[in-house]
């Protein structure tokens, strides 16, 4: 793996970008950029598995990220006993009802021979079940939402360590992807793109408006962390010693003890933030490398060859006796699970879950730009794309500010055009993304690190 040139490019770009930001801005900013780059890399790998390996176009990334985020709540938040006693039973019953409806639809679909009206019958069952579901769950939902509406108003979670939620998010996403895949995967590429985009819209609507489940637009804040808190670090003996050790040369020059202590305190506060982010980075790096390792293994295995064969020529693969439908469904689930994993990581890192922040531009199309820019069908490309795109995304506002300042230097401070441009600095990142994507598609259609064709 180390001999691979892509690997070298990928990780040297990663290190250089982080160090540059660290030197020129601050190490805190550099590390938070690195963390989000790593999360983006996981998302990009998930999309790459679907698009690069199997040629499945999934524009529903946003939905799976939101499900991953929802998992963090369901796993880590302490349960709300009052809400459970008030409406838990109703929710459970309606849950059982929902499962029953799904299974009855599946059984009808399987057992009854193809009849002209079978589809209409299934459709009728689904339509009928929605008001029924509302009727069963409605009273309990309003009860749950009325308990401590300002602070909780939802069922809460299982009060487990948040790191479990990453896996739960992945499993939930795989389940949802199973259903979505069963419905949508038979469609042609462009229809698949549109329908997955719309499905993700439905998922976001549910997460946003089912307040008993996710608190919806009221957000959940103060989630648990898999790493220590800054405050605890600042009060712990070993951490202060560590900071003292690292800054011993700086501290030695100061003779006044009061000044020394105040400087040390300041250093402890700044480095506790950096330390927490560093812990996150290590955790995320482990995830990225693990997924990368297995993904590379899979890509170079007989299974990976079969997937590429299906992607390149579906008919031929079918003729060779490969079950295309089954493999497509499997890889759709696999990729979505990785995306869900990344979604849970993102919410864990942010420490809060805000359903209204999930927008297709940021959470679907940006991830796609990462994959297309980095290189489809190449895991290192996806990681590189995640890094480069997130770097541009973060740094384009300061860059645009610089450019605008250079060009409008001769203008007055109160000049209308200058003020207007300075106000719209955040939107230059969209421009950069669009132009970047168009240029790459034109001049390097296979991305920065193209897929390596392995010839045996």
């Amino acid at each position, binding site marked *: 793996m180390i001999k691979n040139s892509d690997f070298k490019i990928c990780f040297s770009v990663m290190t250089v970008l982080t160090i540059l930001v660290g030197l020129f801005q601050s190490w805190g900013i550099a590390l938070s950029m690195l963390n989000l780059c790593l999360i983006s890399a996981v998302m990009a790998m998930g999309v790459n598995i679907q698009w690069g390996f199997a040629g499945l176009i999934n524009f529903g990334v946003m939905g799976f990220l939101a499900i991953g985020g929802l998992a963090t709540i369901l796993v880590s938040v302490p349960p709300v006993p009052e809400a459970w006693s008030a409406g838990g039973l109703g929710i459970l019953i309606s849950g059982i009802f929902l499962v029953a409806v799904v299974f009855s639809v599946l059984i009808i679909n399987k057992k009854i021979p193809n009849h002209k009206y079978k589809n209409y019958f299934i459709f009728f069952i689904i339509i009928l079940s929605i008001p029924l579901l509302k009727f069963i769950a409605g009273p309990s939902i309003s009860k749950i939402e009325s308990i401590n509406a300002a602070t909780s108003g939802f069922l809460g979670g299982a009060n487990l360590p948040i790191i479990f939620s990453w896996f739960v998010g992945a499993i939930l996403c795989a389940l949802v992807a199973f259903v979505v895949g069963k419905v949508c995967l038979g469609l042609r590429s*462009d229809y698949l793109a549109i329908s997955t985009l719309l499905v993700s819209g439905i998922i976001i609507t549910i997460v946003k408006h089912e307040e008993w489940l996710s608190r919806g637009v009221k957000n959940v804040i103060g989630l648990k962390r898999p790493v220590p808190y800054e405050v605890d670090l600042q009060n712990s003996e070993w951490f202060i010693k560590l900071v003292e050790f690292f800054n011993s040369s700086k501290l030695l020059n100061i003779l006044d003890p009061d000044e020394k202590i105040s400087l040390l305190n300041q250093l402890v506060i700044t480095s506790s933030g950096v330390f927490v982010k560093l812990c996150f980075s290590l955790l995320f790096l482990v995830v990225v490398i693990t997924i990368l390792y297995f993904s590379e293994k899979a890509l170079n295995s007989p299974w990976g060859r079969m997937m590429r064969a299906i992607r390149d020529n579906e008919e031929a693969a079918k003729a060779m006796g490969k079950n295309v439908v089954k493999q497509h469904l499997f890889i759709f689930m696999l990729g979505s699970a990785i995306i869900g994993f990344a979604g849970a990581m993102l919410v864990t890192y942010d420490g809060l879950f805000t359903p209204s922040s999930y927008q297709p531009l940021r959470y679907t199309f940006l991830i796609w730009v990462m994959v297309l820019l980095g290189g489809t069908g190449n895991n290192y490309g996806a990681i590189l794309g995640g890094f480069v795109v997130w770097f541009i995304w973060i740094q384009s506002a300061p860059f645009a500010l610089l450019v605008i300042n250079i060009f409008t230097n001769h203008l007055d401070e109160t000049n209308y055009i200058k003020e207007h441009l300075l106000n719209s600095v955040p939107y230059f990142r*969209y*421009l950069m993304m669009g132009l970047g994507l168009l240029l790459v598609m034109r001049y390097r259609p296979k991305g920065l690190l193209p897929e390596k064709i392995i010839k045996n």
Partner: protein
Amino acid sequence: MDFLNSIILLTNFIVVPGITYGSQLALGAIGVTLIYGVLRFANFAYGDLMAFGTMIVILVTWFLQSKGITFGLLPTALLALPVGILLTIAVSLFFDKTVFEYYRNKKSDPVTFIVVSLGIMFVLNAVVRIIIGPNDINFMDGHKFIMKAREFKQMTGLNEGLALKSTQVITLITTIITCSILFYFLNKTKTGKSMRAYSNNEDLALLSGIDPKKIVLLTWIIVSILATVAGTLYGLDKSFKPFTYFNNLLPIFAATIVGGIGNPLGAFYGGFLIAFSEIGLTYAYKKFFKYLMPEGLEPSTLIQFISTDYKFAISFAILIVVLIFRPNGIFKGKVI
């Protein structure tokens, strides 16, 4: 009397908004479907093209207003519309020349087209936000109401009012005019017929001496007109916000596919189907049944199929149902 009241109630809350929203969706969906039929790809930049056209209209409206020019009872935006259309056409043709033409000549697969349209979507998104900002803008002026609910109540003596906003009437009239010209053009004129022929069978059309460049040019012009008109009407009726325009792309796609992608008449009906199901399924019919049912039998619940939060989700769900049962759309697609 109760019967009349219930009819007015439904007209006020379902029929009138449904027709307005449906017209806006229909205009948008016809544009998407034309691009699909002739250029053979789903254009994700369409929502932002609408936003761009509307932005130009708003800027020109502001300019006209600052010069003291208004359109009397009608909104000034209608005067500004031609400028908006011209600039939108220019932008569409610019992107076609710089981006799409290359891939068309290379005969790239539909996915590549989708991806580059995503690039254009990002660019247009940025341009609109940089020029006019991301905020909500209301640019409706002129006479607001044709009939107010209170006036209607006084006039007829009914309990229920019927409000008619002038934007609703303008939307309907503009849609009727635009669509009749468009369908006349596609079905009766020679150029329109050649466009349909090109969409139906490219090779055969080329053999019969139809110039593909002319067809592509024409398609972009029509599409830009439709996008600007639809965007302006939507903005007049509700308000202009770049993000909403991007989001509207989704119901527009739903309408396009429901009506059979590549089929303008289908897209027209699809727009209305989506609009009426969105509004009809999220409306609470409690009051309606209160008028119709005998006393003592009134419903205690809202009688609402699904809460209004799920308005967008309905159109998506309809689309998915259609995709499963009739992947070609309710009306057969792929022929203009």
